[in-house]
């Protein structure tokens, strides 16, 4: 068994060993070993040229990654957390996403950017938000959310190989989870959603940290005689409409779980896709389980109440099946 953080480190090592164009940079990724201990030992193995501690300047080190990618390198940039990445949004939206288009296809930006996202560690309203939808809104970039140990590894490899800018969101509660890691087989396409558990009564559609809560909810529902299918979106841009619609076409009911705020969320986007393209397959209204619309509070009981939990998913699932 391997941990999620070790799986990312394994991928980083593979990339740094096999491709001289790859380098890794971010705040505290070198000497400190990474804020989530992902890159421990990499500085010692690969040296300061290829594992770079950056100053605290998200906009400029992400921008420098974009420039280096245009210049022929394959940078992997770590931003400590999604809240900090807002300082780099200018570079992401105004440069990374548009460079290929604005230059008429002359320049491409093969950069991979990783960052932690989500709540659950009582680190309050400047370190806990889920803003994947902000990124997924923007054409020109791709967005991945690995929920499993295997995906944490495979998606980083795929992101670096990809000719377009790829943003990877790692839920901060997942770094410690353990699971099997296969580094030999050819991984599935990162751009496709996965059915994590098959079921026939309803579809629980989730991504990132919420996938695990959806799986636990499915166990609970099974005790009540309800068979829930769990869809892990995996790729947030592009969204795999086919798998989403395919699942709901079998179960005819959908609950979408998203740790972002409901307004303008990816859960809203998935719901709209179902309304537009699978309306006649639905036997019940689509339900969304999202974070209550407040900044994430510090106090444990309030933080737990704010973000989607298993009981809220189970309740939404029951309502979808029995009505009311």
């Amino acid at each position: 068994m391997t941990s999620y953080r070790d799986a990312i480190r394994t991928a980083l090592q593979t990339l740094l060993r096999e491709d001289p164009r790859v380098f890794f940079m971010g705040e505290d990724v070198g000497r400190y070993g990474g804020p989530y201990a992902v890159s421990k030992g990499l500085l010692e193995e690969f040296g300061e040229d290829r594992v770079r501690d950056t100053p605290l300047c998200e906009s400029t080190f992400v921008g420098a990654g974009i420039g280096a990618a245009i210049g022929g390198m394959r940078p992997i940039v770590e931003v400590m957390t999604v809240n900090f990445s807002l300082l780099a949004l200018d570079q992401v939206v105004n440069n990374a996403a548009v460079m290929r288009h604005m230059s008429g296809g002359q320049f491409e930006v093969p950069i991979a950017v990783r960052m932690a996202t989500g709540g659950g560690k009582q680190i309050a309203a400047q370190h806990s938000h889920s803003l994947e939808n902000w990124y997924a809104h923007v054409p020109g970039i791709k967005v991945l959310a690995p929920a499993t140990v295997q995906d944490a590894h495979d998606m980083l490899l795929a992101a670096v190989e990809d000719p377009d800018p790829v943003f990877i969101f790692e839920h901060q509660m997942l770094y410690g989870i353990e699971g099997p890691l296969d580094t030999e087989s050819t991984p599935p396409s990162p751009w496709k959603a996965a059915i994590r558990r098959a079921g026939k009564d309803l579809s629980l559609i989730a991504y990132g940290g919420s996938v695990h809560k959806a799986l636990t909810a499915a166990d609970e529902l099974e005790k009540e005689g309800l068979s829930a299918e769990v869809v892990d979106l995996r790729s947030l841009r592009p969204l795999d409409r086919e798998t989403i619609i395919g699942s709901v076409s079998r179960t005819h009911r959908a609950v979408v779980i998203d740790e972002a705020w409901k307004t303008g969320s990816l859960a809203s986007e998935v719901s709209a896709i179902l309304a537009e393209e699978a309306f006649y397959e639905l036997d019940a209204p689509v339900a969304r389980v999202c974070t209550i619309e407040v900044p994430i509070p510090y106090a444990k009981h309030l933080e737990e109440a704010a973000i989607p939990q298993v009981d809220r998913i189970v309740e939404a699932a029951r309502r979808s099946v029995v009505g009311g």
Partner: protein
Amino acid sequence: MTLDISRDHVLDLLRDMIRIRRLEEKSAELYAKQKIRGFLHLYIGEEAVGVGAMHALREDDNIVATYREHGQALVRGIPAGEIMAEMYGKSNGCSGGRGGSMHLFSAERRFYGGHAIVGGGLPIAVGLALADKMQGESRVTACFFGDGATDEGEFHESLNLAALWKLPVLFLCENNEYAMGTALHRHVSDQNIADNPPAYGVPADSVNGMDVVAVERAVHNEAELVRETGKPRFLELKTYRFRAHSMYDAELYRSKEEVEEHKKDDPIESLQRRALSDGLITEADIEQIEEDAAQEIADAVEFAEQGDWEPVEEIRRHTYARDLS
């Protein structure tokens, strides 16, 4: 002071400044005729900066420019026709009609764009220099930006990072005294812009940006020092924009007298005056340059007029390497 350069060299510099001036005048005319739309930022008055700098840099160096980049693009070698077609929005433009006036690009000429987020090009320049350093290339990345960009956090962050990582970036600040319509004294606490970079360990100097010969020398010296040391340097080019910020600008923030005063330093007229009085060139030379430039611009307009509009069916092109829809 005599010009201490050869006849051929002075003709080259003069020719390129006149080419830019005529291209810009024609662009303004075509804007009034609604052939060119969107934002159009003219370089008139600042030609000595683009021409002097481009003549000083090597063909293999990287260029990162701003939204006022027609001059740099032209002297760098992007054909006037491709620039004009880009401003028309035609598919034979240098960015395929996807960029327009503010976003001229040429991979072939290492021209990494017109950037229209003030300060946003600086981190890109730092990254290009990082890529070169890591790949063992000896080229310099020359990054143009205006005085307004020095207000931005990315300016300070980029100086710091380039100095910290010892990256071969030449920061070229085109100080035209206005951040759009806000005068230098209204937007910078220390109006001596070259004071700032040394605080980050980046050596800085200033040059009269209305004197093309001085600009060429200064940029050449700075670029060769960057190449030699592998470390960043900063050069302020003191210049002045004779025309409005963009075609939407009513210029309510400065007086006509102020503009007229600066026009006495017109970089083209002053070079002509000096070269004529030094006996380096004749009136006939100037006439010939004007004639050639007029022909080049007329051909450019024809090239743009003859260009095709990209079919709407292709709208998704260039968003990703492969269409995701």
